[in-house]
């Protein structure tokens, strides 16, 4: 047993760190570190820079243009990116649809879609959830009826994150109503510029537009855009959902946030002294720091453990989201009453208007509100505890 990274891994970390130092544009870095929203352009620009380095798809095998890193290397890369203030890459293409295309897509689909994902030129969206379905994915009602070489898609998808920028969307649709819920589902790739698609914003509780409803009204989708076999989409969907063992723990992001928190705690004032000197506040930070360390080690244990993704993923999801939520809560409270103010313009580039307190207060409450989604989406934490009961405890 050895908790140290190998010299090779340490060298790899240095390489990534140097690359980030050299290549991460300062304007992007500054926005991310201030917890302000990166623009679509920033996300795409950064993806192109990574792609130029051959690192566009950090989880991709070499045969598809990835660097072929193992999971520990991927984790190091993620962590260094987060610590450096790089924006998050867009998961929907790189980590959700791409693995499905690689595993179940035909050659034509691979050739057509993977390059655009890798260089960031095509923005992918997710069409899994439907209104009222929640954690019960298999109850979906969007239909695709076969009409010659096309499917005619009708229905609605929801919770489509950043779908307003979307070029393509991958969807689960019902192609057979005769069979029971999890069968009769197919996996389609749909061009979002197709006639009949309507993307409507859902305003979140923080007042932001991050999520969308996507409506399909007789949308024609060529049959060649179906992944794998008709009615077998559930298999591919499960693969997609089970693909991530440790990503939901978000360790890299939270380590970056913890570093930021320690800065904030030195900057924000409590009756004329930095709030870090307030033991009640500091205790909560120290508690989270310890829990985050435990989470990190649990992630590493899971990664280097031969067994496949099981209930460990649920444990990591629960702990990761709980720690993240409490960290953002603490970040909000660090700025005290300043956090009540809502200045959404201050989240935009080039804002020079008035602030209340420091810039730390700007994303405070909004981020806290927004992060409530962590314990709801991706299988609610209640569902995760059900999974642990069943898989690990055998109940």
């Amino acid at each position: 047993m050895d908790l140290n990274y190998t010299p090779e891994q340490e060298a790899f970390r240095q390489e990534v760190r140097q690359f980030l130092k050299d290549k991460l544009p300062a304007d992007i870095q500054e926005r991310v570190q201030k917890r302000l929203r990166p623009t679509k352009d920033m996300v795409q620009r950064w993806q192109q820079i990574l792609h130029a380095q051959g690192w566009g798809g950090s989880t991709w095998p070499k045969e598809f243009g990835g660097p072929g890193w193992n999971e520990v290397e991927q984790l190091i890369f993620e962590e260094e990116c987060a610590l450096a203030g790089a924006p998050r890459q867009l998961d929907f293409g790189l980590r959700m649809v791409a693995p499905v295309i690689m595993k179940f897509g035909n050659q034509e689909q691979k050739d057509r879609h993977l390059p655009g994902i890798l260089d960031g030129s095509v923005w992918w969206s997710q069409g899994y959830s439907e209104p009222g379905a929640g954690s019960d994915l298999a109850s979906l009602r969007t239909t695709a009826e076969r009409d010659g070489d096309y499917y005619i898609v009708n229905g609605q998808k929801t919770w489509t994150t950043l779908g307003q920028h979307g070029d393509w969307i991958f969807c689960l649709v019902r192609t057979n109503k005769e069979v029971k819920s999890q069968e009769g589902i197919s996996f389609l790739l749909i061009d979002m510029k197709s006639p009949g698609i309507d993307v409507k914003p859902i305003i979140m509780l923080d007042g932001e537009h991050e999520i969308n409803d996507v409506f399909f009204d007789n949308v024609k989708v060529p049959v060649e855009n179906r992944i794998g076999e008709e009615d077998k989409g559930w298999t591919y969907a499960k693969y997609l959902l089970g693909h991530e063992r440790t990503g939901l723990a978000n360790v890299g992001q939270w380590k970056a946030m913890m570093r930021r928190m320690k800065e904030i705690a030195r900057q924000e004032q409590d009756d004329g002294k930095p709030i870090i000197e307030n033991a009640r506040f500091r205790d909560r930070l120290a508690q989270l720091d310890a829990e985050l360390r435990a989470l990190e080690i649990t992630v590493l244990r899971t990664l280097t453990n031969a067994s496949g993704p099981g209930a460990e993923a649920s444990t990591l999801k629960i702990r990761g989201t709980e720690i993240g939520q409490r960290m953002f809560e603490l970040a909000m409270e660090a700025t005290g009453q300043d956090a009540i103010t809502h200045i959404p313009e201050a989240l935009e580039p080039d804002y020079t208007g008035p602030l209340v307190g420091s810039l730390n207060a700007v994303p405070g409450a909004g981020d806290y509100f927004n992060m409530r989604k962590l314990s709801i989406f991706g299988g609610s934490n209640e569902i995760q505890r059900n999974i642990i009961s069943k898989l690990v405890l055998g109940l």
Partner: protein
Amino acid sequence: MNFELTEEQQMLQDSLRRFLANEYTFDKRRDILASGKGTNETIWSALAEMGLLAFTFPEDYDGLGGNGIDTMIVMESFGRALVTEPYLATVVLAGGLVRDAGSDAQKQAILPAIASGEKLMALAAYENGARYNLANVKTKAEASGSDYLLNGAKTAVIHGGQAKQLIVSARTSGDTRDENGITLFLVGADASGVTINDFATHDGFRTAEVSLKDVKVSADAIVGELDKGFPALEKAIDQGTAAVCAEAVGTMDAMVETTLEYTQTRKQFGVPIAKFQVLQHKMADMFIHAQQGRSMAILASDQADSDDRDARREAISQAKLLIGQGAREVGQIGVQLHGGMGVTDEMWAAHLFKRLTLINLLFGDADYHLGQVSDNLLDKTA
């Protein structure tokens, strides 16, 4: 020992709730908030007509002589409906301060004007970097003949952008953080040298940053005594704290109700999610928090009028501590049980959650008040 409302109080509560149920619906509230004005003339006038704005003022000044329990009734009803009108700022904080510490002339000039609905006011008590310490006052008021010149800045002035007149705490002697040497001044919002930056809050209220540059006020603008403004200020904030405690109780109750309703309607895996035992127990916990919060809001409201400083402050801090924690729990569970819908702007639960979150940050968060009661324990047992 009696926890019943009087007949009058019951009537007040009933008519207010009926009014709000009709006139302060989800849609109407959204439109009011969208106006960005921080108050709605129709609603505010109606509240004035119902006598609400005068309830806690003395009868000599067009009031009805009500007490902290009356404020509680109003605020709890506001909390249930998420009313964002400037009642706390104008009636409870500024109005209460004038009532308790103002001169007769000030009361004559101000209380009836508030009561009739024509005058909005705000209390400018906090400063940047001071966090929740009301005695950390750097804003200076220097005598200049028979006048005073005010210089400095105030933060977190609730509804400050809507007020015609502010009450500003300023230092007339002593060092930063001294309780002695703080004086309260009436300052017109349109006085020369006053700049008010009006902001929205996340929960649909308004707050302002106020800067004061050589603002000249006369000696009769002093509320209470020179250098001795702190006890009155502290009491006003305590009354405001009791008021938001009561408000939070209304909001918690509303969250319990809307969550019960939602979970009984919403189905997953073929059954209403309210059938899942884990969710039932979480709702039981919400209920327990709301019950506990109600007990503490009653305590705080009962003590808010008291001049026994130690007893009052202990009650207020104990109440705000538990209600801050309860609001957090009830808010988080409520959103969680609404699933994805709970984090959208469309759901009542999301708005209740935001208010519950921000109430914890007003007048001292749970950690702050835990510190107060904890250190108090040290003094008492030393």
